[in-house]
């Protein structure tokens, strides 16, 4: 016969916390790669929802059935940590990325793109006018495509934050 103090391990609380950590990390290590799951992090929010359900049921067991389940102490601690993790996620996904300067002075449609000269990875100076007139590299174009070896129709300037 089991003793009264040999209560069952409250695995739902631990599972809830682990799902919460996975919900956080999986965005930055996996879901960030795909526009469908990055533009709006719906998969991660679903995972956080699952974590919340597990934690709520686990905590209910810890307190309402305290003679049957453990977790009165570590339950609330893991739940609080999960809330912190979720808070950091919301901050990193919905608050920080919206603090971008407005760029009101950026060249608009119909305006001339300012000419520039910048160095490429080989330290060679490259001008916008050269990028617009140099033939497209046939090797990196689709075989047989009309674009091969022709001057480009246009240049896509992609400004990015850098390797941070």
């Amino acid at each position, binding site marked *: 016969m089991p003793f009264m103090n040999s209560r069952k391990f409250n695995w739902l609380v631990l599972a809830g916390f682990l799902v919460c950590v996975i919900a956080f990390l999986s965005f930055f290590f996996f879901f*960030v*790669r795909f*526009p469908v799951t*990055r*533009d709006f*992090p719906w998969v991660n929010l679903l995972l956080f929802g699952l974590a919340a359900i597990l934690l709520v049921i686990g905590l209910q067991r810890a307190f309402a059935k305290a003679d049957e389940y453990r977790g009165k102490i570590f339950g609330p601690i893991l739940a609080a940590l999960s809330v912190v993790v979720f808070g950091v996620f919301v901050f990193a*996904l919905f608050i920080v*990325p*919206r603090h*971008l*300067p407005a*760029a*009101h*002075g*950026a*060249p*608009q*449609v*119909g*305006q*001339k*793109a*300012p*000419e*520039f000269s*910048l*160095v*490429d*990875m*080989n*330290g060679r100076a*490259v001008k*916008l*006018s050269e*990028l*617009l*007139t140099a033939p*497209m590299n046939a090797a*990196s*174009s*689709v075989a047989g*495509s*009309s*674009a091969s070896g*022709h*001057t*480009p*129709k*246009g*240049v*896509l*300037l*992609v*400004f*990015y*934050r*850098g*390797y*941070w």
Partner: protein
Amino acid sequence: MRSIERSLDAIEAQGIRPVAISVDSPEDSRKLCQKAGYTFTFLSDPKAEVIRRYDVLHPGAGVNGQDIARPAEFLVDATGTVRWVNLTENFWVRARPEQVIEAAKALR
């Protein structure tokens, strides 16, 4: 960047040459391209002069508080005229290759 590389053939088939610009040094860009497998042109603007001229500077937003570029995409036609602009309001939301290809179809 990742999605541009993935759709590079389709973008180049439209006659569009993608060019990435950041404050990273040529050395850092080379490391990034090796690591991530990017094969298009990367240009370095360490003093953010061109980034400033295009008004896409994000002051103090780098890891060490340095000035960097905010994400932005400009499609420039053969005459040097801007034909399409994408200034995102959320740096997780970037231009999709389909948008670029759609805009490229309007060029001649």
